[in-house]
């Protein structure tokens, strides 16, 4: 490297936005999940332009992972949307944890409208991440609906992240993560809820060479 190049000092903001040539060469690429161990499990993050699934029972950390993915996408300058069946979003906690609420398109809807709303969002184009939150929804979607959503995600370059209670997408998902029951931790006495640990297992996308990890442990802290 020349002495002139060594002496070159880049603007820190510009440096933070520089994209490596390897990343540019990558055809589809991955986007960070916002949680480093999960990125390790997924081989770099959630796949772009694909349907992804995250499933587990209540209090397994699905919502926290979804919110982390949204925060990471917004931090990267992407446009994001959350299709929230039941309108369960905890805006106060989301804002406190650094998610810029004004940058999030939030759609509250009934389960029957959720797929149609996600279709509309993805078809608009330009959305980096669209989350379909079906955690508490009793929805029997036909396979054709998932096929259509997968095609739309592929065409528009959107990562569609579906959060559910049980596995629903099957082979339609390019990556699926199963969350295995959160283990809550209390400290005290008197007992105070501190958070919980959960184990994330890759249920689909195991052929990825980037990742050699079968599962990772994730820790979620309570807001209080």
């Amino acid at each position: 490297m020349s002495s002139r190049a060594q002496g070159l000092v880049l603007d820190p903001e510009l440096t933070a936005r520089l994209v490596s040539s390897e990343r540019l060469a990558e055809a589809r690429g991955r986007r960070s999940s916002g949680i480093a161990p999960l990125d390790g499990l997924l081989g770099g993050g959630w796949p772009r332009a694909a349907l992804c699934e995250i499933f587990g029972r209540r209090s397994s950390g699905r919502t926290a992972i979804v919110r982390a993915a949204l925060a990471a996408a917004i931090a990267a300058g992407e446009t994001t949307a959350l299709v929230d069946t039941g309108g369960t979003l905890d805006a106060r906690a989301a804002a406190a944890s650094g998610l810029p609420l004004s940058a999030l398109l939030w759609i509250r809807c009934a389960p029957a409208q959720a797929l149609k709303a996600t279709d509309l969002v993805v078809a608009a184009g330009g959305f980096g991440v669209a989350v379909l939150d079906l955690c508490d929804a009793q929805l029997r979607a036909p396979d054709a609906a998932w096929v259509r959503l997968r095609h739309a995600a592929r065409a528009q370059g959107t990562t569609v992240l579906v959060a559910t209670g049980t596995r629903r997408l099957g082979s339609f998902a390019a990556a699926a993560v199963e969350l295995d029951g959160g283990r809550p931790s209390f400290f005290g006495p008197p007992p105070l809820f501190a958070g919980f640990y959960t184990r994330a297992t890759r249920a689909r996308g195991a052929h990825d060479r980037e990742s050699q990890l079968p599962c990772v442990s994730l820790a979620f802290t309570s807001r209080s």
Partner: protein
Amino acid sequence: MRLACVYVPQLALQAALRRCPEALGTPAALLASHGKNKPRVTELDAEARRAGVRPGMTAAQAVATAPALRLFTATAADAEAGAAALADVGYAFAPRVEREGERIFFAAEDLKRLYPAGEPAIAQALQAHAARLGFGARVALAATKGAARVASRAHELAVVPEDRAGTRAFLAPLPVHLFTDDDDLRAAFRRWGTRTAGAIAALPVDAVALRLGPTGAAVARLARGDDDEPFHPQLPPDALEEAIELDYPIYEIEPLAFVLRGLTDRALARLSGRSLACAGLTLRLALDPRGLDVREVPLAAPTREAKTLVDLIRLDLARRPPEAAVVGAHLIALPARVRATQLDILRPTGPAPDRLATTLARLAALVGPENVGAPAVVDSWREEAIAMKPYAPAGLSSAPIPSETRLCLRHRRPPEEVEVLMGRAGPTALRGVETTARVLVAAGPYRLSGEWWQDAAAGGSWAREYWDVHASDGAVYRLHRDARDGRFYLDGYYD
């Protein structure tokens, strides 16, 4: 200066045909009544004239002459909407337009830069745009208003030379009756043996003024290319209106939505001609036998998609149906520019502004406008309080990625009432609609209260004891006991 004149002959009939485009190309006539007299044919198209229909016939006579004739009744709503739509032909090309009955005038000087092929191309573009709005128009470009008016009456498309001599030469062969609507004046010129503009131009203007007064002098000056009629252009109105008076009352929403689709299509065609979108809708429905139903249809963002607007109107009608049958509809669309955004070379491209606006409107039509937007924190200690703000992705800035992963509470809104069994150390079991479980660990209570200053109507004061409980189904729930009624409510669960 160059002025464009767009002339729509028989504007009232063409305005009525706009709401019934399938009648184009068939014999059609307009009926109008004066006082208590029977309605008579006042305007008719070329097909009807060919079939033998003449102005002044009654409806029965006209139909007997041409059985395939479509008869329309002249309504004020059609006339107003037609005149406004004609003005919009001009506003699509110029910021200010002068309206004059069946014609509009506007300055066309700057259009030469947009149409380098020349003025014939401008005239064709104007005629094509008028056709898109449902008008068969004649177009003329000239240096003065009078010359443009006469040329538009004489030719389908006309470009009058810019200089005075050229204008005079262009007008010279045209018959005198095109220059004035005054029958006395026409008769006077006929008596003099002056049948063309060239013959009038040869007469001294002072002598014509002495014999025929100022109107005769104006015709003489116009024939010589000396027209000095002033041009009074005006800015477009703030809102765009389309209206229809129905021949029969409509009782159901779907047929009404079908009628409103036509109004919306026509309004959007006018807006798109001006590169605008619809930012708000007001619908005034005339009820049978009397009464008015006025409703504002909220839009999440400006849109040009008719289906979206009709869906929103249909939703609004379904939510609050009109109290009586509808006999007329008046649609007022608020124009707005489609949001523009500045792209960033270092950041991903977001959705296109117009696509996003349409998507927001369609989402609003699907789930209701109150359920689409950006979430916002409310200044309240109530944990479930949340607000929805309009979503505007422009001006997003990169935010730092949070360093730790925090738990989220999945709120139930409103909190669900549950049965809770209390022990000495807190809840020991809970039973709700979706949950029945033993409590393994209970943390709490955390007491919160507030809003004692609020009226009871606004929710009033509240006082709660919160518990975080680890239940035997594996979930960690958040519950509270309302201090006012002693009941337990499930706020949600951590996830």
